[in-house]
């Protein structure tokens, strides 16, 4: 009984950690630019594909992840510069469509560069399962959860301790005021895309040994990341992390105790229920509309 529950929790936390990273990516960009970046999943894909294909051609793993990460950041900055920034004054929906266009474009390019087949990336530290009170987990799960935790803490420190981070935070609170005190808002937007892309790419690399990498791997992960960000309250970093873990665990429990076919529905039912009582997510601040 307990072993079963533990097994589900372990699976849930692993995948939840990736949702959390994706959700955090959504939140960072949202804070800086009020854009919902539907290409967030593609950053994950770039990280996963780059690390899998580069290691296959002999590049050492850490370097491969670094290259993937750099590539994703570059792509993120380009998307921000040439698509999002130019359409700054467009409506929310228009911006969403632009990022959707970007995600289709990136998938197309990835298909051309890497091909359509699934890529395998060896687990970072072997595949001997770790036994834990009757449940078992892949060592890679520890990598996923560990990396996510480190990144989340690092992001927290970055926003609260560094000048750049504080500038980005200030921009999210009040764009105009930030501009007035001399913060280069445009650069903040670019930085936010780069940061989110890096988060996504590292997430993609650590999760690749579990999920395999392929050009469409980002679609579902991105969608769940958005779900996580909204559940936690858009723009609320820790909220996105909590949201990701909740969605991951709910899915795993749903698959275990209810029905595996309805496991995706479980996550969305939870969100609808939460939004019904908390229209701004679990931790979101109540917005006031300016007339």
């Amino acid at each position, binding site marked *: 009984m307990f072993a*079963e529950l533990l097994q589900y929790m372990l699976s849930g936390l692993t995948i939840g950690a990736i949702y959390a990273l994706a959700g955090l990516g959504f939140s960072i960009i949202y804070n800086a630019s009020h854009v919902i970046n539907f290409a967030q999943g593609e950053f994950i894909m770039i990280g996963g594909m780059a690390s899998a294909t580069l290691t296959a051609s002999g590049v050492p793993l850490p370097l491969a992840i670094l290259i993937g990460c750099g590539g994703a950041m570059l792509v993120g900055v380009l998307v921000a510069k040439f698509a999002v920034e130019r359409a700054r004054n467009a409506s929310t929906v228009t911006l969403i469509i632009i990022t959707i266009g970007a995600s289709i474009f990136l998938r197309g390019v990835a298909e051309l560069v890497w091909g359509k*087949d*699934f890529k395998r990336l060896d687990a970072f530290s072997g595949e001997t399962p770790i036994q834990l009170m009757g449940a078992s987990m892949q060592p890679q799960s520890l990598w996923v959860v560990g990396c996510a935790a480190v990144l989340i803490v690092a992001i927290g420190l970055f926003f609260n301790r560094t000048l750049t981070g504080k500038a980005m935070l200030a921009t999210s609170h009040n764009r105009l005021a930030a501009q007035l005190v001399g913060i280069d808002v445009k650069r903040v937007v670019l930085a936010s895309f780069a940061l989110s892309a890096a988060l996504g790419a590292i997430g993609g690399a650590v999760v690749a040994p579990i999920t395999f990498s392929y050009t469409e791997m980002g679609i579902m992960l991105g969608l769940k990341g958005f779900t996580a960000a909204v559940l936690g309250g858009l723009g609320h970093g820790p909220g996105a992390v909590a949201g990701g873990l909740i969605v991951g665990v709910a899915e795993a429990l749903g*698959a275990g105790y209810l029905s595996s*076919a309805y496991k995706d529905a479980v996550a969305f039912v939870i969100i609808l229920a939460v939004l019904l009582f908390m229209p701004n997510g679990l931790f979101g601040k109540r917005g006031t509309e300016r007339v």
Partner: protein
Amino acid sequence: MRNRLLSTMAAMVGLALGAMAGTASAADPIKVGAIVSATGPASFLGDPEKKVLELYADRINQAGGVAGRPVQLTVYDDGGAADKAASFTKRLIESDKVDVIVGGTTTAATMAAVPLVERAEVPFISLAGAVVIVEPVKKWVFKTPHTDRMAAEKVMEDMKARGLTKLALISEDSGFGKSGREQTVAVAKERGIELVADETYGAKDTDVTAQLTKIRNNAAAQAVLVFGLGQGPAVVTKNYRQLGIALPLYQSHGVASKEFIRLAGGAAEGVRLPAAGLVVAAQLAAEDPQKKVVTEFTKVYEEAFSSEVSTFAGHAYDGLMIALDAVRRAGGTDKAKLRDAIEQTKGYVGTGGIVTMSPKDHMGLTLDAFHMVEVKQGDWALVK
């Protein structure tokens, strides 16, 4: 104000139509249309299919075509969506006016195309697995791959031989998996195998430990069968080893590609599945009638694409060859004669087996066409 707008729009529509109409071409080619899922969740199958069709159309044309006529191939990618497959089928029939259609990578795509080809009376050779495609027999519809029913039979034959009678099933929620599940349930009843678990997983799931945990806790299970295709079965296999389940693991013919072994890695060791002779070409006995065909095909494919051959590539090869062979025998591309000629295919030695069709059998393969193979040291090994 609307006038200029209207003329702009009219010009756009005109341009669009012109582009869609495509180009007319050389004298009397044999027009072969194909719909494959070269992208999307079934690209694992459809991408090699597309490559093979293009490769062999080229090779045949370089060798002078069929009965002096070149082969003109039109391939559309349905991205794994049945409705797109239907729309492209219409396009092949109505706009490209093809003589024969090869394709429908997935069962869903095939079944979406079936009513259209039946109505338009165009011969159609499907590359998909489910038994519903040819049972009941449809006048214009044929298929090259082995059915899911045959896979279930082959697996249970092997189980019996090992003295196992209680099977746990985990199937994919895709069309292939659902049909496979139905056939497994039916065949199990006939063969006296008891199904003790019946789980499903999503085609895109990255973790199925929850379902496998249930199977692990089921004391009655003696063997596990996975029915799915693409990366899903590889995920199941990895999770299976992760949970340390020691029961024999069977897969369906939906993973008969080196891709599967590569993806699942060490976890694939010991997995058994029914597959066409193609994947074990080198291990076939010298007197096996398929030996020559599969060895040759493997060589050509691997030289052209420097990747390993899969049975799906073979299905496309068989489909194209059966169609062109029928053109030769029918003495042209009259659709009714072509259909009859396909139905009269007899003793065609292909990558999937020896095909002898009849008015009652539009696939023409027997259970002998399947070989039980086991993954050993990262390669397929014939189970003797």
